[in-house]
């Protein structure tokens, strides 16, 4: 067992090196050894897939190694991050070497010979490394070709890209060890600090809208005994959002209105928080007699139009969200004094603008 773990360590190091210029010192023999190691680990994956203890031990080691500063919850390093990745480690290594320009010509030539033996060798099943690489290449080309079917701003590609990112996020969330309760939150916070935030918010929203029984999308093999149930990732996201008020504010402020409404419709905890924020924003507006409209005291306050737009969208949602929103508005209106005349309470005006039929 110990030797296996050592092997894993050395291979992970090898994998890390394979992207650097250090490979310029590699000769065909080195490449051969590297491929052999990869093949061995792939064999380990297929052999011990059902052996829970060994698998868990390997997974733990990989996850520990896979964090940038060793702490659970920090961002993962590209490479072998979980047991499943072992099943593809030969492909991972091969692709890195193929793209590395620093690899010498002789070593590169040897690598090609190993990967693509040519027509003489029978390609028994598609599960060979060659088949896997070719299939990947075909899929990549397909993506290239299909992306041109974009039209206007909301291209098909953009939706698919968001959905894919959402799936990736949920997969990483699933891997955070459950032992530490703060693991997922810390992980998400790290991501929030490091990654482009607007995109991250959109991805979270899409992730929250994915159907609850989403199976593992990236793995090509079925994983047995998945430790976490799908849908838990969504719960972690919500928990984190509700805990971090600045993120929640950005979430509600920056995302497209329709998207927010959908998310609120699906997750009642978020709809409450959203409504809370909206009422908060509403209280900052004062009625300007000259202009005859509600304006914010400061520039960063949300405008009347925007507030109205959001409420309008919420009221077009199916019940119970719609009812929840109207109830909230009514109660705010009552708190303010239950005025019927416009210009005195923003809540009255909003309800009037939304009309009784909405």
């Amino acid at each position: 067992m110990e030797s296996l773990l050592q092997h894993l360590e050395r291979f992970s190091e090898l994998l890390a090196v394979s992207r650097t210029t250090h490979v310029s010192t590699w000769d065909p023999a080195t490449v051969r050894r590297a491929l052999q190691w990869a093949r061995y680990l792939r064999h380990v994956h297929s052999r011990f897939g059902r052996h829970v203890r060994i698998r868990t031990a390997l997974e733990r080691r990989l996850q520990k190694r896979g964090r940038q500063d060793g702490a659970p919850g920090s961002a993962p390093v590209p490479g072998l991050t979980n047991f499943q990745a072992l099943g593809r480690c030969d492909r991972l290594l091969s692709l890195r070497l193929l793209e590395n320009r620093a690899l010498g010509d002789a070593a590169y030539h040897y690598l090609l010979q190993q990967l693509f033996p040519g027509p003489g060798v029978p390609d028994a099943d598609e599960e060979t490394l060659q088949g896997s690489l070719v299939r990947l290449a075909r899929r990549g080309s397909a993506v290239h070709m299909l992306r041109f079917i974009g039209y206007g701003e909301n291209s098909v590609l953009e939706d698919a890209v968001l959905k894919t990112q959402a799936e990736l996020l949920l997969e990483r969330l699933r891997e955070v060890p459950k032992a530490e309760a703060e693991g997922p939150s810390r992980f998400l916070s790290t991501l929030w600090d490091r990654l482009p935030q607007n995109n991250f918010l959109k991805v979270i929203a899409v992730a929250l809208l994915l159907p609850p029984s989403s199976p593992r999308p990236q793995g090509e093999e079925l994983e047995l005994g998945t430790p976490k149930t799908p849908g838990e990732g969504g719960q972690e996201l919500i928990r984190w959002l509700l805990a971090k008020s600045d993120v929640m504010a950005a979430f509600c402020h920056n995302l497209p209105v329709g998207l927010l409404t959908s998310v609120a419709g699906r997750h009642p905890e978020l709809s409450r928080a959203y409504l809370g924020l909206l009422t908060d924003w509403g209280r900052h507006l004062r009625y300007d007699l000259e202009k005859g409209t509600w304006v914010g005291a400061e520039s960063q306050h949300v405008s009347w139009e925007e507030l109205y737009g959001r409420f309008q969208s919420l009221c077009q949602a199916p019940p119970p969200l719609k009812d929840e929103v109207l109830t909230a508005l009514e109660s705010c209106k009552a708190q303010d004094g239950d005025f019927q005349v416009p210009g005195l309470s923003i809540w009255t005006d909003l309800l009037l603008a939304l009309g009784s039929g909405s």
Partner: protein
Amino acid sequence: MAQDSVGFSSDYQFWLQKLSVWDQASTLETQQDTCLHLPRFQEFLRQMYEVLKEMMKAKKILIWCLCCLINKEPQNSEESKLNSWTRGLLSHILSAFRFDTKEVGLFTQGLGYAPADYCPGLLKNMVLSLASELRENHLNGFNTQRRMVPEKIRFLSRVCIPLVTLPDIEPLVEALLTYHGYEPQEVLWPEFFDAVNEAFLLKKISLPTSAVVCLWLRHLPSLEKATLHLFDKLISSERNFLRRIECFLKDSLLPEAACHPAIFRIVDEMFRCALLETDGAPEVLAAIQVFTWCFVEALEKKNKQLKFTFKTYFPYASPSLIMVLLQHPKEIPQELWHQPLKHISEMLREIVEDQTHGSYGGPFECWFLFIHFGGWADIVAEQLVMSEAEPPEALLWLLAFSYSPRDRSLQRTQTMIEVKAVLGHLKKLFRSPTLSAKDLQAAAAESRDRDPRPPLCQQLIRRLILNFLLWAPGGHVIAREVITLMAPTDELTYEMTGLLDQTLYRWDHLCMEAPRSRKLARELLAELRSAGTAR
């Protein structure tokens, strides 16, 4: 193809060298060399074009070619440059899609994913997204409604042509095939249909039947190709037994698709042409018969969904005739089979003997309709042999007609007389305890004072003899001897095996018991087949 590609990649090296030589020097020698090699070079370029055309489908071959170009020890800067260029190209081909937006790239990297990890998932999502767009659905409710304009759909179908054999693309192909727009003309690119059809016929793509039916309804050449592909399989050099024909037919999805009258008419027409061109070959007859079995079976299953009257499938036939033909013998007790048979005979006779040819076509049309439901013809022969009574004229007529539709009434009457005579002899022998092969030979013998029997009539008689052997109590004893006498040639053996196979197939479908006859038939069939291969 493997052979070609080996030769091709070495050819490529050869031509590359030649080209560099020709490029560098322009002496008289090189000019002569060029002229000499030009035709071969042309051939090579043509091959290269074919290969490049297959680029998407045969990525492997392209990769192999490029691998050959890599020099493991480049001697000079030129070779290094070529290496570098080839490596770049290989890298480009093998690399998965990379997000070109910085944000997204950072996101995936931040999560520790390489493009190879998310490419399959991305493709899946794009395909699903496009497919559901085509179905005018909303995706998870966060998109605004979008309509895909016809030009975009056309372009999409064109883009999909080289992707058709990639399994991930199947949902999109299905969505395109079943797309129903509001435009009067076909919006999809024609080569798209060709590509999908070919992939389907070669089993490189699996599509639901509804999508395949849409394909064939929208693109006639595809349907024709699919039918011809089926014919190829059915009418091969080795005799295909009816069970196998049934498998091929069901596999091809054509019987199920034929529940749609337009498809049925086209396929039926092609069968008719095949029949005419082969002058009524038994293989084609068998194929039509099995096709109709499968078609009727499929139609019954769909009974609740499709509601076309039979007139739409058989527009030139008398509706009452079709109703009788469609009856399944299984639903009628065996003793009463005479009734529908007589009825069919009378109706057919009326149409055939109607000099004005009415609205139901001439003798050939009638016969063509009849042989679709060929089981009835086989039953007539069996019934005539098994029955103790005097053979009814209607059944004799039907039997004669089924074998020889183009006979004039005089010829037919002649045949009927012959058959009646033979049947008379056979009946006397049916329960004879001392049955011998010679007796049977005598019974079947042609009478000297009449004209020799035409070949189709002889065939008919042979069939009656075979039925006799299967059903007469003493038949199994003399069976082999009689068959040796009756089928001395390969051709006749072939005929006999066909008859036996057809009989067994029919008994299976009708769930007829008759264990002794069945056993005999099976044994005879096995013996004849092995004798046939031994010769």
